[in-house]
């Protein structure tokens, strides 16, 4: 078997990528992952000698924005190379084959590369109605996912759908869309790498997958299973409007002076202080901009359940405390009002009683 397995380098050459482009790609990758130039050689060496790891890209209940983001990676070379590495196998949106031929590929990979392929999942399986809300190749996606997950080496959960559930899992979640790690359950023993965002940033996606393919190991993950290299800081920690936050200069209304001057968007509900993502450093569309730079607050798209966390335009968002669905300040001010009024009334009553008692004596 080993003689038939190609290296990444061989695959790339077969795909028409020149050696020059290959080397460029290696130095680019080294830079993107924050390594020194010396690492380019290591990456090149690894790709020339190591048998390639196949990547299967499955699509469940989703809108394809993760794929759309992915193919817009800033550096066309990176995109071409990475795509050439993965589209070979299975990605029902961008692969060449279709129908039974395509489904046969899955079977073949599962068998030939048992325990040795990466399963990238975009979207998630809906579990209600026996999974009928998402049918792939004649059977529920949940079945396909479970079946392919069995022999995978690791799983990448692309986007907020696969990682957390996203919009299709928002209340009341009629199809019971379930994120990948919850669907597979605690008994699943392979690493699951969450790359949340709606969609995730292209460079984050290519960065994660390149790291895994070239170094043949999973990136270091945080408590929630996200790669630390892209998700260890909040938008707020690296936001270029942060000096205005610290100074106390805010956009109070959308068309005010502060909005024109680019003040901090905290008071109009920016979720930057509660959102882990790389937008304020990597930015979007080839590093052009990101929501805050365009004048709108972050809506927290890479956070768990962000659709159900109340207003995008207030920091005092709806919560469910003691069975009451309201914001913390609404609950709190009401409680303070009631207790305050009760204290005053009680004080008055006490005074009356005390006076009566005196009179009685």
């Amino acid at each position, binding site marked *: 078997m080993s003689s038939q397995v190609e290296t990444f380098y061989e695959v790339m050459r077969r795909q028409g990528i020149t050696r020059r482009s290959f080397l460029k790609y290696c130095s680019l990758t080294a830079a993107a992952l924050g390594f020194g130039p010396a690492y380019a050689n290591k990456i090149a060496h690894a790709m020339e000698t190591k048998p390639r790891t196949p990547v299967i890209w499955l699509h469940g209940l989703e809108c394809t924005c993760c794929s759309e983001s992915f193919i817009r990676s800033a550096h066309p070379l990176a995109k071409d190379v990475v795509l050439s590495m993965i589209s070979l196998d299975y990605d029902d949106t961008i692969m060449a084959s279709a129908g039974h031929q395509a489904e046969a590929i899955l079977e073949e990979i599962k068998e030939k590369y048992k325990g040795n392929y990466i399963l990238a999942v975009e979207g998630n399986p809906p579990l209600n109605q026996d999974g009928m809300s998402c049918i792939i190749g004649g059977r529920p996606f949940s079945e396909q996912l479970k079946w392919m997950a069995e022999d995978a080496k690791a799983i990448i959960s692309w986007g907020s759908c696969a990682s957390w559930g996203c919009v299709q899992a928002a209340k009341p979640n009629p199809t019971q869309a379930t994120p990948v790690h919850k669907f597979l359950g605690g008994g699943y023993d392979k690493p699951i790498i969450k790359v949340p965002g709606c969609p995730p940033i292209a460079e984050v996606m290519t960065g994660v997958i390149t790291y895994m393919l070239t170094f043949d190991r999973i990136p270091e993950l945080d408590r929630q299973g996200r790669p630390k290299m892209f998700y*260890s800081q909040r938008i707020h920690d690296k936001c270029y409007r942060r000096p205005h936050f610290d*100074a106390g200069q805010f956009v109070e209304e959308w068309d005010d002076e502060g909005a024109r001057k680019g003040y901090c968007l905290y008071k109009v509900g920016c979720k930057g202080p509660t959102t882990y993502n790389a937008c304020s450093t990597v930015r979007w569309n080839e590093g052009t901009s990101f929501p805050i730079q365009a004048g709108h607050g972050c809506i927290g798209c890479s956070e*768990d359940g962000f659709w159900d*966390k109340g207003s995008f335009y207030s920091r005092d968002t709806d919560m469910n405390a003691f069975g009451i669905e309201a914001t913390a300040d609404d609950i709190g001010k009401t409680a*303070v009002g009631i207790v305050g009024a009760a204290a005053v009334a009680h004080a008055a009553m006490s005074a009356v009683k005390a006076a009566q008692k005196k009179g009685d004596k």
Partner: protein
Amino acid sequence: MSDTNLTGVEKVYVYEAPVRLWHWINMLAIIVLGVTGYFIGNPLPTMSGEASDHYLMGTIRFLHFSAAYIFAIGFAGRIYWAFFGNHHARELFYVPIWRASWWQGFIDELKWYLFLKSEPAKHEGHNPMAQLAMFFMFVLGSILMIFTGFALYGEGTGPGSWANSLFGWVIPVFGQSQDVHSWHRLGLWIITVFVIAHVYVAIREDIMSRQSMVSTMISGWRYFKDKR
């Protein structure tokens, strides 16, 4: 509670010096935390001019975090004292609902507050109703604020910092960061409700009950107004 017969007793030493000192430092810390916390959640109107001319939010947050350290260290010290102080030092941290006498005292106190009794019972330490409020609103409230507060603080100081290592796990327990903010924000109101009730009742008891209240937290001695 643990009311031995108080007939004929003039005064009892209740609050030892560390408890009294902690009480007043804690009060100051809570005032600073409450005010600065409110303005972190609902910032003051925008300052004009260059960003480099101001550091208002920065200062407010600095005060919040400084008071937070005092509050948290004080709370830890208070727990320590519960083990090594007199038996009154422990009353704050548990509610003896398994004791019939506690329930009896509670109902008694309730009646007194509903004006159904013309005279309250005497208590060396806390009365049962006060004990209930102190435990559920102040003790649990403080624990909520310390855990959520340091979890949020650890988000700013970043992975690898002590706060993040020690309290980072709190974030996924509540869901995500925004949920932790919401609960921390709700905590302000829980503590505020407690403070209103606590201050009102302490003053009222000082005037209307048969024993001293406010001065007890200053001198440590509980004076009884009658010898019955």
